[in-house]
């Protein structure tokens, strides 16, 4: 009997000790519940037709945030309309033709501003929405993930793989300055509209509510 009990007991002890060592090493590695990466059902991946994708599967083109009721554009490595390195100047109604950014369009790059991307996504009914717009600073800040792995862009892990560690435009405009959110530092800054910065559009279409009910199964493939 003894011989049978001991191995089992020792396995438990070894495991418990390893775990407690891990705990000592500060491995409370579940991201805390306030942070964006932790909440299990907060985000849903969507295809460009707006269909849900299982949490660990892909590809996906938009991300729905259940908490904020917002759908975010996901950038791409292809040098097309969603190219993650494309920069935009901020669109000024009084200077609609001032285009100081540089955007991939499949074949090469063209000068562009933020409204160009807004129009394009609405035109193609991207991820099933025609209400794409530049996010407010508050909306953009809700994406900042301070628990991101050191050195990585501060966005929810695994959802926005192509994010530049630089300033992204918001729609908040005060005294000729626009609020930006820097996804390398997580900080809020300000830039004049003539600068070239990065851009991730958002949609708060009412029809998106359907995604709130989507279960995110962890199906591996």
């Amino acid at each position: 009997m003894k011989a049978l009990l001991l191995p089992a007991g020792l396995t438990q002890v070894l495991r418990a000790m390893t775990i407690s060592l891990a705990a000592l090493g500060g491995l409370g590695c579940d991201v805390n519940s306030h942070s964006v990466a932790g909440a299990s059902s907060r985000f849903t991946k969507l295809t460009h037709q707006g269909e849900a994708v299982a949490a660990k599967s892909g590809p996906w083109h938009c991300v729905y945030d259940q908490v904020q009721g917002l759908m975010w554009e996901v950038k791409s490595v292809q040098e097309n309309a969603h190219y993650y390195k494309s920069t935009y100047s901020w669109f000024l109604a009084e200077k609609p033709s001032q285009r100081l950014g540089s955007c991939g369009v499949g074949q090469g790059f063209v000068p562009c501003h933020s409204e160009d991307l807004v129009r394009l996504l609405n035109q193609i009914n991207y991820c099933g929405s025609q209400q794409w717009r530049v996010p407010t600073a508050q909306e953009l800040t809700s994406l900042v993930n301070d628990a991101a792995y050191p050195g990585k862009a501060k966005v929810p892990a695994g959802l926005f793989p192509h994010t530049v560690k630089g300033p992204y435009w918001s729609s908040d405009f005060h005294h000729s300055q626009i609020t930006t959110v820097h996804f390398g530092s997580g900080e809020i800054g300000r830039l004049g509209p003539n600068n070239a910065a990065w851009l991730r559009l958002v949609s708060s279409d009412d029809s998106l509510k359907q995604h709130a009910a989507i279960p995110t199964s962890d199906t591996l493939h």
Partner: protein
Amino acid sequence: MKKIRTSHVYIVVTHLLAIIAFFTSLLSGFRLAQDSDFAIALPALFMPQGDVYFWHGLSALCWLLVVILYLGFHFLRPQPLRISPKRHRVIHLLYLLLALSFCSGVLLYLALPNLPYLFVQFCHYWLALLLIVVVIWHLIQHLQLPISQWLKVFIPGRQPSNQRRYLVLSAAAVVAITVSYAVSIFYPKLSPKLVSKPKHVAIALDGEATEWQHITGTDLLVAQGAKGAIKTVISAKAMHDESVIYFLFQWQDSSENLTHLPLIKTAAGWQVQHNGFGQDDEIGNYEDKFALMISDNARFGAAGSIHLGSQPLDNAPPSRSGRGYHYMQQGMADMWQWKASRLGHMAVLDDDHFGQPAPVCQHCPRYTAGYQADPKDSGGYRMNWQWFSESTVVPLRLPTADAWQRLAQRKRFAISWWDTEPYSEHLDNYPVGTQLPSVLWLDSFDGDRGDVRAKAQWHKGTWTLEIARDRDTYSEFDMALTSGVYLWPATFDASQTQHSYPQRPWQLVIQEGS
């Protein structure tokens, strides 16, 4: 009242220590055997997870203590054990097997370059199984006796006061504890040394050893790896100037594997040619790799960075390969990974590290715990699929018309990003059977990940790899290369995660002056 039978306190302590050491060695050993082809599959209950190297190392020290205590007692004990000859036979067998286990374990740990490592490992494993049988036999023999006769081995008796013997025994205990302590603290000092000499010649980073002829090297045995069965010797040399340190590593590999998960067109669509990649355990369709880990300690089990088992970390996803995770409990280890194909277009390797486990990622297919690449802003390589799937994939890019010719002339089945265009169905009119590279070369890494320069060449069964890095990069993801740090090499023979590794690292010694 009947007097309770007792044993000499030395017997009690030594025997108890042996029991603890035995079960710790055995269970941790079962997990260590997980990658050995010859090992018998066991239920998870018998295979503890996590930092089992630490426990095996600890049990080894425990055995050392047992040996010292036992020898001390053997020469000092007042009278021989009063056991029947039948039981004595089993106990002698126990001594023999324990001594062989201990010696073979020490041989494995020292892993001198000419050791038939895999054979000794095989013996060490089978000795462990034999020990189980003999220990059970030993138990049965004793448990058959009336309880008072075997319980005494756990009950220390009062010894007739004999000051002199008491003193000698205590001294023996102190010696034993001190020796074990010293071994545990100072064994790093026993590490083989890699001495870096001041550099007097210009070094061209080309994967040729011409500049290194006059430098003496040092060898280290590495073993295990894909299919559980390789043993190879890595030879290393080092040179430095005020700001840069150069390394030369050479190891034997009968074939140069440059093909990396190629895509093939089938009737159902494009497929990745793979054999385990979906479980992070590709073997065969993978490039050769070499890794060097740099740590500030020489602890058993890759400086304590390897945690074996399918779920060594609570609250984290299970390891998809079921084999474990690299991560550090505290601090970090720098880790460089040279990749024969994916970075074959540049003189650079992938600068990574083993840190504390990354936060759990709900939306990532693979969790890698502490194994992370150093940050980059862009550059390197990209895999040519929109999303990996075991069945079919949609390529990310297709070669432009004139790129096929360049591809045909290249040794590595990889293609420059700038030689491709975005995939679209109307461009995809390739016949079934067409092969497409999965590796898309970008330009140089921009960021910490490109901190280490490296170039390798394979010639007649030997890889020669030259590496150069600043002695200090001042990056939080790198370790400064100073005298005293430990260097752990690993080779990957056409495999993704199964690799050979050393039991002990080299310790770097930077010889200043001329």
